[in-house]
């Protein structure tokens, strides 16, 4: 079966200072099967947002291949892209800036359907009402403006709009990071519920590992423009193999003081190097607790370990 998303050797570079390109995404490959949710995690500057922006076509890929349901995005012409965008929709972090303040939320949700000529008149109104109900809002909310809603409700509206075209792939970039804890739980429950009902593939970009663990089937960990590990979620959280994945997991504070304080701390020393001038060999070696001479010179190959893939000379 055609995967919902297939990325091969993707590069996204931006012009940087002194003619050094910032290699935000530097040779990434992965697939998302139909109906599956992949969590893309990493710290700020690792390239996860550049990657998701390239997938929806908000930034141009420098090289490599992005296929959505078998259709090539990189280098596609406008007509092809326009056709393809019906298949991929995006939900951003901040719902307040994702909605036009002068447009009723009903009009916002109807817009993608109108633009594509998929429904008009009474059929359109019914479709919008169904979408509102799908995300847990009431049909009579359609006439209200964005400012009449709380942050959590606005994110529901944004999700309803993204679902309007029934995309094969939903890209969520930190969809709950701007929300309060109790509201975050509501949106996470909604996303899990939509996954099981609509069987839609999702690329879920987040820095929050406990959120990713909660909603994702597969997890890919990114560091300085490259993937360091990809594995089924259960396996990655139970047996993280890459030292960076282990450090990330150890850094997430557990909301239980007994568990949290009993943890052996593996605080990662140092900071993320400059992506315009990444270290040679393994990019993580400057911060890695188990780095050896080999890591400073040779880039580790992507290899199969257990049910996942990892890029580390010493991972077992």
């Amino acid at each position, binding site marked *: 079966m055609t995967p919902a998303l297939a990325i091969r050797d993707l590069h996204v570079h931006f012009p940087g200072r002194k003619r050094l390109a910032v290699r935000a995404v530097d040779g990434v490959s992965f697939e998302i099967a139909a109906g599956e949710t992949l969590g893309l995690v990493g710290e700020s500057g690792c390239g996860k947002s550049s990657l998701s922006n390239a997938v929806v076509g908000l930034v141009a890929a420098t090289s490599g291949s992005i296929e959505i349901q078998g259709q090539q995005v990189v280098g596609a012409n406008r007509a092809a892209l326009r056709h393809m965008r019906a298949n991929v929709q995006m939900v951003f972090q901040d719902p307040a800036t994702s909605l036009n303040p002068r447009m009723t939320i009903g009009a916002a949700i109807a817009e993608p359907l109108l633009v594509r000529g998929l429904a008009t008149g009474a059929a359109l109104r019914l479709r919008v009402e169904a979408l509102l109900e799908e995300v847990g809002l009431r049909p009579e909310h359609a006439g209200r403006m964005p400012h009449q809603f709380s942050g959590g409700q606005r994110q529901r509206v944004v999700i309803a709009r993204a679902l309007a075209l029934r995309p094969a792939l939903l890209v969520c970039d930190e969809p709950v990071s701007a929300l309060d804890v109790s509201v*975050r739980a509501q949106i996470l429950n909604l996303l899990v519920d939509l996954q099981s009902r609509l069987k839609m593939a999702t690329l879920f970009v987040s820095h929050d590992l406990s959120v990713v663990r*909660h909603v994702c089937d597969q997890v890919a960990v990114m560091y300085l423009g490259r993937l360091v590990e990809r594995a089924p979620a259960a396996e990655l959280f139970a047996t993280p193999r890459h030292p960076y994945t282990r450090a990330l997991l150890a850094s997430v504070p557990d909301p239980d003081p007994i568990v949290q304080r009993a943890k052996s701390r593996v605080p990662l020393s140092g900071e993320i190097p400059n992506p315009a001038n990444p270290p040679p060999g393994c990019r993580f070696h400057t911060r890695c607790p188990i780095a050896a001479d080999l890591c400073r010179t040779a880039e580790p190959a992507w290899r199969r370990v257990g049910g996942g893939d990892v890029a580390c000379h010493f991972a077992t």
Partner: protein
Amino acid sequence: MTPVLAIENLSLSIAGVPVVDGINLGVDAGEVMALVGESGCGKSITSAAVMRLLPGAVSQTAGDIRLAGESLSRLSERQMQAMRGRRLSMIFQEPQAALDPLSTIGTQIAESLRQSARAARPAVLHMLDEVGIADPARRIDQYPFELSGGMCQRVVIAAALIARPELLLADEPTTALDVTIQAQILDLLRTLARERGTAVLLITHDVGVVADIADRVAVMYAGRIAEAGPVHSIFAQPRHPYTQLLLASVPRLSDVPKSPLAVIPGRVPTPLEFGPGCRFASRCPRADAQCVAQTPPLRPLGDSDVACWHAA
């Protein structure tokens, strides 16, 4: 023992609308007290009141704030100005925004000592080392833009603590940082508080951060304290329904993936919607007529204090 910080019956209002309503809170030397709550609960404005940095529209309508027994409310602005940075300091969420982009970090840290950059140089170098900045001799002459976010927060902490204040207010100090850097900064705050005996009032919405470094916790909801107590009691046996739901709504690395998380229905009432009773009543699964009509007092229960008619 007199606590370093005592907030007594503090009430704040904006244009006559109460936003903080009679809260009491104490922080002892060397202790980390976390003030937790969702946006709009009044936690940040409470810390601004302690620093006497309230926006013009907010007025203190009742209560007192004491630092080591001394009332801050009676001080003139000039006297208060002399206290800030020396006896009580504050750090914020955005370290880059807290630093002056046009002066070196050494000059900015020296400012808290009210000394020239040259005279303070040895002390500043020592402080930079203490907050874990590698190569202080080079960093001291750099500007904020040359430092990463994590390093800027270390600089802000150095500036806040170099004059050895008794109280540090930390308003979401790690919210803008990555998890691996957050772990480093929380370790640093805990170590410094313990070694120097600084009292820390930590404002946060992140229960993971609370579980990591707090000794005691006060949970705030709609301008009031819902529950306060030692961190282990609050997490092991939350007694207020709001605390219970708040803790249950957080995904944990140990729960079953995709299992439904606890949800608090509805939303936080705005100050204009506050009724005469418990402010959580409109969202509380246990609310009854008494809850809607009468405000529950904060009463001792086990190790904690709880403001709920039904908590047991």
